[in-house]
């Protein structure tokens, strides 16, 4: 088993809901509600869930675009010890930022239209002290080559590129800082089908080449499964199931995962298994349901689900597909001896 490079402990991010002219806080949107996850060195951890489940907020907490309400984010430092990113101050905190980079969903809004590609790259490189102008230009050149773009594209402006090319540029920009972890937030969902495969394959190749660790956030289960070694399924701010991607598909234990998997349309005739249609919509994260958050929509709910919140626990006796890969699920049904 590979060691954890990034450890998320009891992480929570609440947004205040305010009312009236005095902006009195009347409640909280619990976007991420006490999540524990560990990301292993060199793996791709998929984060999947429907809109509003907190997957993007979690990603943004990792790169510290959001300051979490509570919890710890530990990153392994060069000497092997785990450093809590949230407790670091000043220069030390700044230096760790380079090590976790992010690729955003929309390649159209993540490049400044009035700056050419070189200056889009140059700013972070300069801030993080990557040598003089000529040296930085070499780095940009190398990064563009790595994503199969011509180096002279650095003098062009964002409007000259297609969506797929822009996403390549955004990936190259993230890589130019030589990060260890890249948080990819829906990197292909804004792209056309025929371009998606190019980007996904490129990301896989870059991961091998630069020994990157990915946190891959997406709503499309087929894409997540294609990319990830392990997958965490989120629902209303909580991780409900975590397993390696093959065993998640073959033997998921949480009724929500089951419904989510069955809802994905499959482009192969006759592949359809019975679809589990969930009733209703995702409830509001301001006032999540009591007990298990999924219970109002769960086809297998029991009395206990309304009262007691299930904890994320390792499934005993699960067929361990990969070495050391634990299968975790937060469901009362699993605690009682698994799926019927």
């Amino acid at each position, binding site marked *: 088993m590979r060691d954890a490079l990034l450890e998320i402990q009891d992480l929570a991010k609440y947004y205040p809901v305010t009312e009236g002219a005095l902006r009195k806080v009347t409640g909280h949107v619990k976007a991420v509600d006490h999540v524990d996850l560990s990301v292993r060195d060199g793996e791709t951890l998929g984060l999947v869930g429907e809109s509003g489940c907190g997957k993007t907020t979690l990603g943004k907490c990792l790169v510290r675009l959001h300051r979490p309400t509570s919890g710890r984010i530990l990153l392994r430092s060069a000497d092997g010890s785990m450093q809590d990113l949230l407790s670091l101050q000043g220069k030390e905190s700044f230096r760790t930022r380079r090590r976790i980079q992010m690729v955003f969903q929309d390649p159209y809004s993540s490049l400044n239209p009035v700056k050419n590609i070189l200056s889009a790259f140059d700013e972070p490189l300069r801030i993080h002290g990557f040598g003089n102008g000529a040296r930085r230009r070499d780095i940009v050149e190398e990064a563009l080559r790595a994503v199969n773009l011509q180096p002279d594209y650095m003098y062009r402006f964002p409007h000259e590129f297609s969506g797929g090319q822009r996403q390549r540029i955004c990936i190259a920009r993230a890589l130019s800082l030589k990060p260890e972890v890249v948080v990819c937030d829906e990197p292909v969902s804004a792209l056309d089908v025929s*371009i998606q495969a190019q980007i996904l394959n490129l990301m896989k190749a870059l991961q091998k080449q630069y020994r990157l660790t990915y946190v891959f956030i997406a709503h499309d289960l087929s894409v997540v*499964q294609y990319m*990830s070694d392990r997958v965490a399924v989120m629902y209303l701010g909580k991780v409900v199931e975590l397993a390696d991607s093959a065993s998640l*598909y073959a033997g998921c234990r949480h009724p929500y995962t089951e419904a989510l998997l069955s809802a994905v349309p499959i*482009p192969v005739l006759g592949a359809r298994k019975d*679809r589990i*249609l*969930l009733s209703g919509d995702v409830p509001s994260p301001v006032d999540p349901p009591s007990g298990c958050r999924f219970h109002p929509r769960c086809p297998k709910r029991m009395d206990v689900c309304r009262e007691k919140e299930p904890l994320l626990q390792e499934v005993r006796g699960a067929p361990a597909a990969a070495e050391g890969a634990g299968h975790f699920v937060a469901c009362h049904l699993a605690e009682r001896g698994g799926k019927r």
Partner: protein
Amino acid sequence: MAEGPILSVRNLRTEFQVGRRSLRAVQDVSFELARGRMLGIVGESGCGKSVTAHSVMQLLPKAGRISGGSIHYVDGSGRERVLSAMERNGREIRSVRGREIAMIFQDPMSSLDPVYGIGHQIAENLLEHERLDRGEARARVVALLAELGIPIPEKRYDDYPHQFSGGMKQRAMIAMAMICNPRILIADEPTTALDVTIQAQILALMKQLQERHGTSVILITHNMGIVAETCDEVGVMYMGRIVELGSLEQIFNAPRHPYTAALLRSVPVLGLGGRKELESIRGTTPDASTVFEGCEFEPRCDRACPRCAKESAPERILDGSRRVRCWLYA
């Protein structure tokens, strides 16, 4: 069914005037919609699938016009009416649009007017086409909302769009389209803005309505999975042309056009995981203003031959019924 198709589009061409140039968004598109069937039109953004739908509905923006071909619709009394010849926004097309042919748009968030109640917006279509008073219209709308699975429809009737969730808004859009019991429903990416579990609900609902009311449906989407699970026939579009048109089995089990085949190989399939490397289509979709002498897919095609770059491929009928536009079969 023994009867002929309810809608046939013949050699449709739609152009957009951009400055002094005219862009061909749809070129020589022909297809037929059989009664009570679901036809899927798939393609990537900019391939002309939505423009085709808007052409049928005569809903093109001012810069767009149908510059060739014709659209024929057979109405309830068996009379053939040529939609493409009707005056834009004239009385004739307005009597068809919304009543006999209805459309569901992609984005439910921006297709509903935020300052009117949901029920009012649905009833509007009904009042336009049928002689009813407001009370009767309300009763019809409430009944349909109930059929669409909206809880306490009498109360939700007076709600505004912001009080509805995404899935419920899309149900309201479906209600708006279905309220006059149209004979043809055109759904343009009806679930793209929705989450997968909600998407599954909406697709099941559309299928159910289609079967109950015998509606003929054109489903426009970029998602091959949705087509595989809901449609009877499929047309694959690329750069304004239908490159392949056939039954679901023909398209998915034995695609003939290189674009169809490549598209199917480039989407990850749930369950296969990362074991199988995805094949990607090289290059990017050309700009819509690019003019091709030959086949539009030639620059990206693995099976292209010299002829492909020079001449546009004719359409051929293969396997009895499927139509393919590729030099490999000409």
